[in-house]
């Protein structure tokens, strides 16, 4: 998992103060976790109940992903769990954030992570942008 490019995308998300945890998962299965940074301690006490609730949400995602379901979220105690679904799959990027975080700003970066992970899924040999060398990244505008 250490060299998994998707894990490196999750590492980037975990560095944001208000991302307490993030994973790529499907029902009953966590596919990818961050490689270098663990979840923030805030979620430890509530992880078990969040995990159970997540699995129920994945049932809905599995049912409606093909119909265009792209995002879901729920609030549990002081946390919000955001699901960014990978189109036409039962997989989602899941992020746990504080219930009253500045969610709009976080959403922008979670969406950037979803797009980057999608690119990696579609082209498994590709490195994430954060691992690329400078001359690989940008074009003239």
């Amino acid at each position, binding site marked *: 998992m250490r060299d998994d490019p998707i894990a490196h995308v999750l590492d980037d998300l975990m560095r944001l103060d208000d991302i307490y945890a993030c994973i790529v998962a499907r029902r009953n299965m966590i596919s990818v976790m961050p490689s270098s940074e663990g979840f923030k301690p805030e979620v430890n006490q509530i992880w078990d109940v969040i995990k159970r609730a997540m699995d129920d949400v994945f049932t809905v995602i599995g049912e409606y992903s093909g119909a265009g379901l792209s995002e879901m979220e729920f609030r549990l105690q002081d946390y919000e769990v955001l699901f960014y679904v990978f189109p036409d799959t039962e997989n989602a990027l899941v992020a746990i954030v504080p219930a009253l975080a500045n969610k709009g700003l*976080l959403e*922008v970066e979670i969406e*950037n992570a979803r797009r980057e992970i999608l690119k990696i899924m579609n082209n498994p040999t590709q490195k994430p942008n954060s691992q690329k060398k*400078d001359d690989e990244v*940008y074009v003239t*505008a």
Partner: protein
Amino acid sequence: MISKTETAIGMSRKWDAREAGREVAETAIKNLTRPPNFFLLFATIHYEKYGGFKEFLNGVWDVLPKGTPLVGGTVAGFMNNYGCFSRGASALAVSYPCMDVAVGVGKNTKRNPYRAAKQCAEMIQNSLKESTYKNKFLLNFISGPVMPSIPGVGQKKYIRSGFVSKFAMQALGLSQALVQKGLGREDEIFEKTVQQLPDYHMILGTSMDDYKGMKNYQFFNDKILTNAVVNLGVATDLNLDICTTHGMKATDLHFTITKLGAGNHAICKINNKPAVPELLQLLHWPEGFLTEETMSHTILYYPISLKRRGREVPIVMPAIMKDSIVVPCIIDDGEVSILTVSGKNLINAVKENLQFFDRIQPEFGLFSACMTILQTLGHKTNIIQEELLNYFKDKSFLLFYSAGEGTYSPMTDITYANMSFNTVVFGHDKKLSN
């Protein structure tokens, strides 16, 4: 017509401040064949924790040709040809032979906004007075609001205690003067700048952190500043114009401001009653609905349209002190409309804004937009990026999110607004291009 304009967007998503600084400069400079006339640089506040902004600028100057005029600062997020981001750094570098450029700086903006504005504008005036180019543009970029820390309370947007609020209202002016914490006073600086440089087209933007309003930094060449105004002045033969749009719509809810306070920065009474309870009643919100936690999810989405020196000004209400509402600019009393805004209206405001520039074949564009738009739309802000990309195609554009923005042109006068999109497009007249 063969374009002689070279522009490039620099971009970095690296976490380490020095590496990010180097990368944002490298990715821009490598796409130019000549040194840039200017380098506009924006970064999110994250680099403060990952090496600091001194190191960030050191990284930029590792790469950027010495003497390049550079201004910018921290912002809540940005958008460019590559996407929309609330973390990282981006730059706009422009190289064009028929362009004169000057930068200016003024310090202590919260303590003495007029002096800072005057000092900053004079630097532009003196540097560009010999320029023979008739089209003039100014980016007026100002340190944004910083929540003052109240003893025993800390930095809060909502203060419930009447005693603390009374103290805080009285201390607001003192806090601005002594420790330079408080409102950005960008409206006052912008007005003074317009007075100094009336023949310029201008965009106003403010420096911010990640929507928390705790700190912000400005960049001026190789210096990191706080509580400063920085100007980029451009004189060129390129065609240019500015435009402000917002998606706010008036509702049938109105009230009358009957008492102002804190140097006309606070609404104390509306309809002759304490302002906050009366506002809650007008909005059908229960007593106690507004708290420190709910502020940014509720009241910011109900802007109000009020008057400032006779001009209509749509603003958000960023702080509550017991029964009074603090507003981001100096206001007049009188009739006020409560506005409403939706995601669809915000996106339509961008389309409307770009339509204004239909006659210009763009070379590059710069935008300041309200950070509450970013907070409201979240990742749907990518829809705006697609609109901009569709307009600019392979030409560079850079939008930064701030807290208090506006435009000025000699034809349309000052437009100061919250929740707005403010654009300058440089280019050629389409008829001449064809």
